[in-house]
């Protein structure tokens, strides 16, 4: 009787010794959540993005500015998706519905201003200071509806629910004959007016979009560190326990979902202003998959990963499309490499796995 007990004490002691050395090892890194490195990486990426158009212009590749603008716009959408997937643990395969809703809000307002007709009694406008915030509001409301219903399900059913809503929204836009049905409609006659000045110039428009992105990066980094952000992350880790601590988890997850939907919708509006073309392809479910791809390749739960992922995808497309039409093959290869070898994506590969952004 005494022997096993002694052995147990021994093994327990050696275990606690092991724990202590383990702890020391991790104390070298310090408190992981207080790590500054993710923010340093964020600043570096944003600075590089700010300088990129100047550099491509200087090297006579000005046509790349529009590609960079798309990196900014889709990076914004992917970053807001990261709030839901990476921080909230809610895998949404329906974010293109919000992207499309933003596109149709801004696109429809612009269409009616060109047309001179009214939209539900409201006159149209191509003023981005109106169309973009309007898109953010509509997207947020749609997020409350879609999230409110989808969050009543769990796991794979949640994914399916968001996908189902995505399809419904897509077919709704397809049915809008006034905006060209599935062909869409060009809005080329509209300018890109932003407040008092005209952003028709691609370089100017890039910096307008970049300013929106910068504000969003700052706000979202504050949000994930806030008490609200902690609750959302707690729900990702252990929702049942959150309820047992007294949190009414549903409303916090829904708020995070709606915030993300709102920002994605804003990005959709920016995309229409950029392309000056409105069509249901913005809301196609494969677009949801592409946003998810950007977040995963860039690194879940880092915010900046969405932007890195968007840059990686667009630049890969841009440079490999000359070499091969099958550039998507390399995207697949890259995704496999991340999923198998670098679970925290490019961000994790750059920072090391322990240094997460909160």
């Amino acid at each position, binding site marked *: 009787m005494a022997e096993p007990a002694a052995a147990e004490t021994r093994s327990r002691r050696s275990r606690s010794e092991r724990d202590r050395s383990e702890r020391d090892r991790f104390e070298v890194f310090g408190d992981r959540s*207080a790590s500054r490195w993710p923010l340093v990486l964020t600043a570096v990426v944003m600075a590089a993005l700010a300088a990129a158009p100047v550099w491509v212009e200087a090297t006579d590749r000005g046509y790349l500015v529009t590609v960079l603008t798309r990196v900014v716009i889709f990076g914004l959408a992917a970053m807001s998706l990261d709030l839901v997937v990476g921080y909230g643990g809610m895998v949404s395969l329906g974010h293109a519905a919000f992207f499309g809703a933003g596109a149709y809000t801004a696109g429809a307002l612009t269409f009616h201003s060109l047309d001179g007709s009214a939209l539900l009694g409201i006159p149209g406008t191509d003023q981005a200071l109106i169309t973009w915030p309007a898109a953010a509001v509509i997207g947020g409301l749609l997020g409350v509806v879609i999230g409110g219903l989808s969050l009543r399900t769990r796991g794979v059913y949640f994914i399916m629910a968001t996908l189902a809503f995505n399809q419904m929204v897509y077919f709704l836009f397809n049915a809008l004959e006034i905006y060209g049905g599935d062909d869409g409609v060009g809005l080329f006659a509209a300018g890109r007016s932003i407040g008092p000045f005209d952003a028709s110039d691609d370089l100017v428009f890039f910096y307008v979009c970049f300013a929106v992105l910068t504000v969003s990066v700052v706000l979202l980094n504050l949000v994930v560190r*806030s008490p609200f952000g902690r609750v959302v*992350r707690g729900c990702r880790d*252990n929702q049942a326990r*959150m309820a047992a*601590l*007294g949190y009414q988890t549903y409303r916090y997850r829904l708020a995070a979902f709606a915030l993300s939907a709102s920002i994605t919708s804003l990005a959709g509006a920016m995309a229409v202003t950029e392309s000056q073309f409105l069509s249901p392809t913005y809301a196609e479910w494969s677009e949801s998959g592409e946003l998810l791809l950007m977040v995963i390749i860039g690194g879940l739960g880092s915010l900046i990963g969405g932007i890195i992922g968007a840059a990686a995808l667009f630049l890969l497309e841009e440079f490999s499309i000359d070499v091969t039409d099958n550039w998507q093959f390399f995207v697949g290869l890259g995704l496999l490499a991340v999923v198998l070898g670098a679970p925290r994506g490019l961000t994790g590969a750059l920072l090391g796995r322990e240094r997460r952004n909160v």
Partner: protein
Amino acid sequence: MSELSCTGLRKAFGGLVVTNDLALGVSSGEVHALIGPNGAGKTTALAQLSGELRPDGGTVWLDGADITHLSLPLRVRAGVARSYQISSIFQGFTVAENVELALQATDRHSFRFFRPAASNTARVARASELLDRVGLTAAAGISARRLAHGQTRQLEIAMAMASRPKVLLLDEPMAGMAPDEARRLADLVRSLASDTAVLLVEHDMDIVFSAADRVSVLCEGALIASGDPDKIRADPEVRRLYLRDDSEAED
């Protein structure tokens, strides 16, 4: 002075009756131990008291009010907290952040978006005080994922204490802890009982008989004995039950 109790509580899983007409109460100032063989229904009873599991019948009372249909989060806010037999903590957070998250749950709401959570110095200080009480100060800054099993038990208790509950339901809190830590926490549980009602599920009879003011014995979902520790120790049916349990454990 507060009191949590239940009357006529019933729960069955399929044909298996796990809680059978259970009446049980715990008031502040006492540690009430709930003991019984494996599978007796102790955890299930706790889950119904805490609000995680809806009973098939019966009533749960808190300070004279019927809280049977109060949801889990609202019941916690009303003052009933629990710890889990199987540690349930937040792996992606540091040890201190786990406690801070438990403390933050007592705020009226958490719709605060811009100030960093870590800048709430009062909360950070209270978290480190709680970690000190359960003996986890040295581990405060590390990821909860790195904790040894016994340490996760200590963290569980710190989190359960965070809301300053009126009633604390502890499900085998010391299981898997090093003996000296277990003794230390038994003392802590004892000291909590001065202003908290503690319902303690525990297998270690030394701890039960030294820490509890009252002991109830559950068997196949029903109470077979209840009373002060000396009375329970002498109860022939309890002795028979535990002797049988021991002899089963031998082979």
